[in-house]
């Protein structure tokens, strides 16, 4: 019976989410004009919902100190207090306000994941485009290195590197960025390889354009659509990986508020039928779902334009 009631609430949540997505898309179309509005009209409701969620996360992350009722590391009550009017979501294992920690974690977790993705992306796509454009031995060397690094499962490799270098946020960012850069490299190289054989690239070369201009002005604009979609997907992978490492106690270290470690710290509550530890995990899930919905739409658009 309780499962049926749960299912009912899930259905209600989905309906509300789709409604919000539809409203957000309608509002976005009304507020913008020209090409942006035309593009937004092609967005399905799920993508509207995704964009709305991402916007909320960004706002919460930027204005965290204004929204949060308490300080990030402030002990404000007893351990594991229940939900009441002062502590809307209760307190955690050290008596810190759960809602405050959730809000600050949006800043920390998403910020770290975004920085890591950006790093992986810049390194991977620059090397990938370079390898495809220059070709020859540079391409061979880089591709073989990437092949070997990709033959080791990502999480296992990350754990190995963290054992050797020790655990800290900076080291984790560098380790994950390195691992994910190999995946970005693969995609950037294969996309660029289809482009460099085109006649207009030949023409640009004959005109005497330099390597940098060739990559940024001729190749990059045509490789942009798949790369942008890849950025979204990569962000999801990095975000999930960082959360998993933090959950295992090897990523973001306390007392910094972080969704992965918050699940770990409060997990014992779940066996008593308290859903509080599911909230940070749900926050992670909701953001990845939202990003995936938007990426799905962009991939669809990118493939649609080719037809």
């Amino acid at each position, binding site marked *: 019976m309780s499962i049926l009631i749960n299912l009912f609430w899930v259905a209600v949540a989905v309906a509300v989410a789709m409604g919000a997505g539809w409203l957000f898309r309608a509002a976005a179309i009304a507020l913008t004009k020209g090409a942006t509005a035309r593009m937004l009209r092609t967005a399905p409701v799920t993508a509207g919902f995704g964009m709305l969620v991402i916007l909320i996360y960004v706002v919460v992350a930027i204005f965290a100190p204004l929204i949060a009722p308490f300080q990030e590391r402030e002990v404000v009550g007893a351990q594991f207090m229940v939900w009441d009017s002062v502590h809307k979501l209760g307190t955690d294992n050290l008596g810190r306000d759960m809602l405050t920690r959730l809000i600050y974690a949006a800043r920390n977790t998403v910020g770290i994941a975004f920085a890591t993705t950006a790093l992986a992306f810049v390194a991977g796509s620059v090397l990938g485009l370079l390898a495809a454009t220059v070709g020859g031995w540079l391409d061979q060397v880089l591709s073989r290195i990437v092949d070997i690094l990709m033959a080791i499962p990502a999480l296992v490799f990350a754990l*190995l590197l963290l054992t050797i270098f020790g655990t800290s946020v900076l080291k984790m960012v560098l380790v994950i960025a390195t691992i994910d850069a190999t995946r970005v490299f693969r995609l950037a190289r294969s996309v660029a390889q289809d482009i460099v054989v085109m006649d207009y690239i030949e023409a640009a070369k004959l005109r005497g354009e330099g390597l940098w201009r060739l990559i940024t002005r001729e190749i990059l604009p045509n490789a942009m659509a798949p790369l942008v979609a890849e950025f979204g997907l990569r962000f999801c992978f990095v975000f999930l990986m960082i959360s998993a490492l933090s959950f295992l106690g090897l990523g973001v270290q306390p007392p910094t508020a972080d969704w992965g470690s918050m699940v770990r710290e409060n997990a014992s509550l*779940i066996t008593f039928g308290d859903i509080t530890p599911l909230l940070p995990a749900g926050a992670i899930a909701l953001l990845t779902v939202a990003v995936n919905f938007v990426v799905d739409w962009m991939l669809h658009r990118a493939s649609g334009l080719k037809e």
Partner: protein
Amino acid sequence: MSVIWTMIAKRLGLGLLTLFIISLIIFGATELLPGDLAKSILGQSATPETVAAFRRELGLDLPAHTRYLNWLFGALQGDFGTSLANKRPISDLIATRLGNTLFLALYAAAISVPLSLTLGVLAALYRNSIFDRAVNALALTSISFPEFFVAYILIFVLAQSGLFPSMAQVDARTGFAEMLYRTFLPALTLTLVVTAHMMRMTRAAIINLLASPYIEMARLKGIKPMRVILRHALPNALAPIITVVALNLAYLITGVVVVEVVFVYPGLGQLMVDSVAKRDFPVVQAVALIFAAAYVLLNLTADVLSTLSNPRLVHRK
């Protein structure tokens, strides 16, 4: 026939080469550390005597290539050295845990592979219907969930009422049926995580073929849609499906790490996470090597199987 055997031998050789390079990386990664490994593990306060003794114990006074060869030949004979944390032989620590991890991964695979193939075929058959869209949205959602979220939801929904145990405690005396029961929730978690991707790819691989002229011909002959998909489309879609199944089975190997920690399951993943926290690098190296070997082996098998599924590649002139 000989074509197949040379192909398999070639792939096997390539796989062994990959494994060899991986073992070099796993071993050589410790050499990347700036400064001295012994000092960095013992900390700043260690006296020069303890550092020297520790270096001897680790064999750090030997040159790197000697240590690598000793380690590699030891590992080939099942001897991974001793753990730094509790001084026990690593092979003892690994022996039962490896069996437990394999059991969990196979259990999850036994549920998820048939399930996702069936769902994929059905989604392709009823494409663009409500069923297809619902399954697709569900798949997209479940890909985005972190494993521990799925695990805790399952604990909340299924273990709360006492239906299944929330901790998968097993030992050598646990019977097979009891094992299946106690590890049901971890296996279900892994199933939910990998099914979505396999299902989506199965659907995509089949739908890709449905536009081909020979499928159109089959349809015009009046063959039932289900038969068109199973007898005409599926055999040609096998190669991408096998690849994606192998990819997900390989994913199970790493996914198992988080799930084992959530359910306190005595497997390799949990051992690895504990050892990372203690910086017990010989154990981490050993487990990483086993995981990487399984990963390479699965990819190799997928490669061979997908080639075998294509008669044009098998009977090449």
